[in-house]
């Protein structure tokens, strides 16, 4: 009896540290943040009043919040498309038979470079490159592409595009490396069969490569969607959401509500909305992974 009990308890023993940690630092905080979103002016007020869904009504009718959602969608969708195109192009090139193993190795390392840098390094480096007096403006003016200095990060018209460009740079290597791994896993027999059927390069790409890579591509898009949706550091350190909200995304909106305006209830409400969206994508991701396995 005793040894049977011990046997039942053994797996929980191994899981104990994980369970304690996840309960205190995941389950409880999620309950807390949901609770905060249902109360009026939490943390700042010692006895906050329960207000039901009133905060959600306020947030969802806030013009700035919808603006932030619009910017976030632009940022996320353009980033994903560009990541996919650049990642796919580089992966295909690194997989051609025209290049030697050594050349491939060198270029793979060069193309993977943006992966090695943390957001603050990326932010500061690009701020320098994109500076009105910086090197990119010099190149553009020397080539007569533009006649006056472009304030990439300080102009309301192009700040969002500039921040998106920086995010594209920092995020495509993950696609490239994953797609490359996927390409190397495709059996050459499939291409031979396609060639025997008279398929040219384009047809073997659409008929063999894309269908074979499909599960990887779907995983990449979902992971990237979740990651880009919550991107905070890069935006915060390049524009801080400005100029005048031009690059405000959902995450900088939440951060400002909490840490510059001290409206913790509003911040929590925004956070819960973001969490719901990410959870839905997360569930789809898990389902897709299970369907493959």
């Amino acid at each position, binding site marked *: 009896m005793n040894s049977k009990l011990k046997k039942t308890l053994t797996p929980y023993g191994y899981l104990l540290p994980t369970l304690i940690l996840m309960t205190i630092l995941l389950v409880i905080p999620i309950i807390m943040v949901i609770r905060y979103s249902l109360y009026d002016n939490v943390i700042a007020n010692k006895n906050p009043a329960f207000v039901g869904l009133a905060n959600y009504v306020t947030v969802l009718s806030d013009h700035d919040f919808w603006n932030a959602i619009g910017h976030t969608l632009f940022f996320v969708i353009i980033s994903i498309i560009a990541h996919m195109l650049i990642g796919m192009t580089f992966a295909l090139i690194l997989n051609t038979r025209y290049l030697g193993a050594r050349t491939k190795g060198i270029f793979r390392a060069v193309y993977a470079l943006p992966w090695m*840098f943390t957001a603050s*390094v990326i932010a500061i480096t690009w701020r*320098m490159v994109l500076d009105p007096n910086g090197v990119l403006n010099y190149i553009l003016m*020397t080539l007569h592409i533009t006649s006056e200095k472009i304030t990439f990060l300080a102009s309301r018209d192009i700040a969002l595009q500039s921040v998106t460009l920086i995010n594209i740079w920092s995020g495509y290597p993950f696609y490239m490396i994953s797609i490359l791994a996927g390409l190397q896993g495709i059996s050459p027999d499939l291409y031979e069969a396609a060639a025997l059927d008279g398929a040219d390069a384009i047809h073997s790409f659409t008929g063999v490569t894309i269908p074979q890579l499909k599960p990887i591509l779907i*995983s990449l898009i979902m992971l990237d969607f979740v990651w880009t949706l919550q991107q905070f*550091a890069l935006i915060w350190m390049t524009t801080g959401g400005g100029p005048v909200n031009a690059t405000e995304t959902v995450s900088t909106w939440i951060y400002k509500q909490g840490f510059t305006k001290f409206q913790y209830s509003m911040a929590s409400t925004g956070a819960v909305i973001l969490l719901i969206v990410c959870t839905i994508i997360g569930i789809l991701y898990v389902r897709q992974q299970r369907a493959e396995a």
Partner: protein
Amino acid sequence: MIGQKKLWVKILIVVILILGAIWAGFPVVWMISNSFKTNAEIFELPPRLITENFSFTAYAKIFQNPEQVRFFINSYIISGIVVILTLFIGIMAAYAFSRFEFKGKSVINTVIVAVQAVPPITLLIPYLSLIVSLKLFNTFGALVLTYLVFTLPYCILMVTGYLNTMPKDLDEAVMIDGGSRWTALWKILIPSAIPGLISVGMYTFMQAWNEYLFALTLTKTNDMRTVPVGINLLMGQHAYEWNQMMAMSVLGSLPILVLFLFFQKYFIAGMTAGAVK
């Protein structure tokens, strides 16, 4: 005709190769180049890669400034502790998932997979009150504990995968010889999973080394700041010391670059495991 087509393809490949290398590499080259310049030369026209004042002065200034050296020490300590704890706790959990059937297994497993989709900013506000009430605000503990939530899931899932490929007979053989499950795990199973653990450890190190949001909000004084926050602080304090900021960026990226250079294979295996099966 076919020969011509091939030539055309080759030219296209070379052009894309070069343009791609400029796109990927130029900001990095520019960062390194500017770390060796004097501050006045950084925005000089026309820009030059190497100037006659090439020097390590900016690096020397960082090493002479105890406050900035501290950012690096903090980052190494925190990332190191996070890697060790993640591997230790994660391996134990993975062993439970790999070797036992128990009540709640699939629920706990789903939660662990789902954590990867939870945006850190969602937990930030509750963390602030939680960390303050646990009296951990502005300590390494605050960062180590909160980082573990985001590093553990990947570790558990990966190590469960490795352990699943090892026959259960191995554990039983150890237990027949009078050993315990604990010794079977750490003496027999783990040593043969080392290559996989290197991948996991590197990925974990990178997550901890790069983390910005929690480091920004859960610490307050400069002696507790990590490299990502420290670099940005430099921006505020010395708005015009670009060469020092670039030198600090180079130094802050060095650990990851070195890891990548020496363990490229493990690195790539670890990073792509999520998307490629």
